[in-house]
């Protein structure tokens, strides 16, 4: 099997080339370009002038930027634990032996395939006052007096709840599937052995199932933190980032700066910061996992 070395190199290049072209042009090059842009005043039309670190200085002093970062983090804090707990509950349900097993799996996952725009508008209509699904439901079952309305999307705290609930409903399916397949990978004899030892259901769950899911939980936590941090459209459609920008996430702020305020340079600087934050989040997560594993 003596393959000519040059030939192997050429073959590898040939096989890698299509990927490398798009990868370099549309991922690596923008990464470099973004660095350049962040040192300029740069509009949608063209490069204007070199401003050195001005954009970065502005960012450090821009309270709107930091509060947007905080809002994205807040969403991570609100959504991640809920995503994990709910996903485990759903997976437990769908993992039970029952005629409805397949039905549960489909139903819990179904919302996840909706387009982000569809899900977001459903969210808007669910939480709207007077005619929205939730308020009319609360009226019907008598939890809300007829002459009262809850303004879910107009109060900052309620708006966070609404956005989190909608996102849970919409995306928990992915985590659910991951948990479900992890549960199905747990060998049946482990359970049987536990039952023989007289363990009840809740003991089995806390002592066996949950520990055996710890690997996938770490993975899901990491994926979920990153995904939640990148939240944008559902908030934008449901609250517009309001009231008073109190729910505006970082991606929305970057987009507004770039495309509504016509300031691509500053938006690029913020994008770099976003990159750094996500990197730090992943690194932190990696460190946590490895520390525990050690």
């Amino acid at each position: 099997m003596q393959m000519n070395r040059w030939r192997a190199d050429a073959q590898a290049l040939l096989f890698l080339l299509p990927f490398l072209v798009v990868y370099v042009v549309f991922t690596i090059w923008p990464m470099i370009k973004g660095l350049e842009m962040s040192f300029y005043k740069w509009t949608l039309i063209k490069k204007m002038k070199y401003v050195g670190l001005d954009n970065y200085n502005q960012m450090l002093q821009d309270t709107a930027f930091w509060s947007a970062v905080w809002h994205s983090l807040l969403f991570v804090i609100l959504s991640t634990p809920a995503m994990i707990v709910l996903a485990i509950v759903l997976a437990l349900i769908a993992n039970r032996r029952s005629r409805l097993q397949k039905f549960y799996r489909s139903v819990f996952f179904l919302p996840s395939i909706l387009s982000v725009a569809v899900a977001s508008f459903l969210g808007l209509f669910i939480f709207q006052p007077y005619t929205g699904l939730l308020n009319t439901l609360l009226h019907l079952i008598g939890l809300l007096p007829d002459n009262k309305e809850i303004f879910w999307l107009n109060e900052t705290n309620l708006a966070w709840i609404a956005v989190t609930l909608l996102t849970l409903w919409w995306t928990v399916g992915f985590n659910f599937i991951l948990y479900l397949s992890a549960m199905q990978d747990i060998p049946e004899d482990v359970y049987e052995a536990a039952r023989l030892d007289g363990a009840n259901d809740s003991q089995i769950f806390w002592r066996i199932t949950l520990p055996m899911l710890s690997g996938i939980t770490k993975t899901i936590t990491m994926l979920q933190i990153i995904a939640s941090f990148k939240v944008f459209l559902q908030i934008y459609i449901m609250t517009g980032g309001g009231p008073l920008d109190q729910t505006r996430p970082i991606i929305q702020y970057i987009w507004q700066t770039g495309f509504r305020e016509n300031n691509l340079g500053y938006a690029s600087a913020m994008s770099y910061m976003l990159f750094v934050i996500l990197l730090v989040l992943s690194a932190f997560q990696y460190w946590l996992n490895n520390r525990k594993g050690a």
Partner: protein
Amino acid sequence: MKWIIRLFSMLLALLFIFPLIWMLIVSVKVEGMKITTLLDWFTPPYSFAVYQEVMTQTKLMQWVWNSFFVAVCVMVLTVLMAAMAGYAMSKINFRYKSFMFFFILAGLLIPGEAILIPLYQVAKDLDILNSYQGLIFPVLASPFAIIILKSFFDGVPNDLIESVQIDGGGIWRIFGSIMLPLVRPALASMAILTFIGSWNNFLWPFLSVTDDNLYTLPMGIPTLMDQYTEDYVKPMVINTISSIPIMILFLIFERQIVKGISMSGIKG
């Protein structure tokens, strides 16, 4: 106890599906209905008039097609490129291979959202804004798919390749008729994940396309919606039309989708 769990499960399932049922039923209501209680959303009369209006008087169908076209192109090209690259990374010994591996891995750390602004500038410089190319090419590089597929190629024994080579088969034959079929389940799963990803991609089309003939669904839908409305019929028709195709696909390919998602758990 069993009974309570069953009831609780049913309630949760109902909660998950209820908004979708609501969407479907409201979409066949008559516009301009007065809604005073929840039940008003569900009672007759029903009508398909708004469906006809939306299909003929908006570009929604064009956008459904665009979404499909773009998603299929992205799916085929992404998986093909990733399979080729994954094969090279797995089965060809070439110089700088470990460097290449890290170069690809680095891509996993670059979130698409962080490069959108410069990507806009790059696409503008290449003059591919407002085109199908512009919608498709920038999202094709998937280091994730390469890494997954590489691990599947790794599982194929080298003897198999050698025996084909002894038979005089070239590298393309090895790749095309031996390797690809062997990792077909992984390919299918990657394909489906890529498809869903493209179907739901909002930010990039939103920034790069301004011509409404090229809109995809996620960015087209908001332009049809009135944020301040109590008449949900038309919005729900739009939501339904946008969701039906993907729901049908889901029901057909549910198994592969589930498998594909399970694979994405490997990543961590």
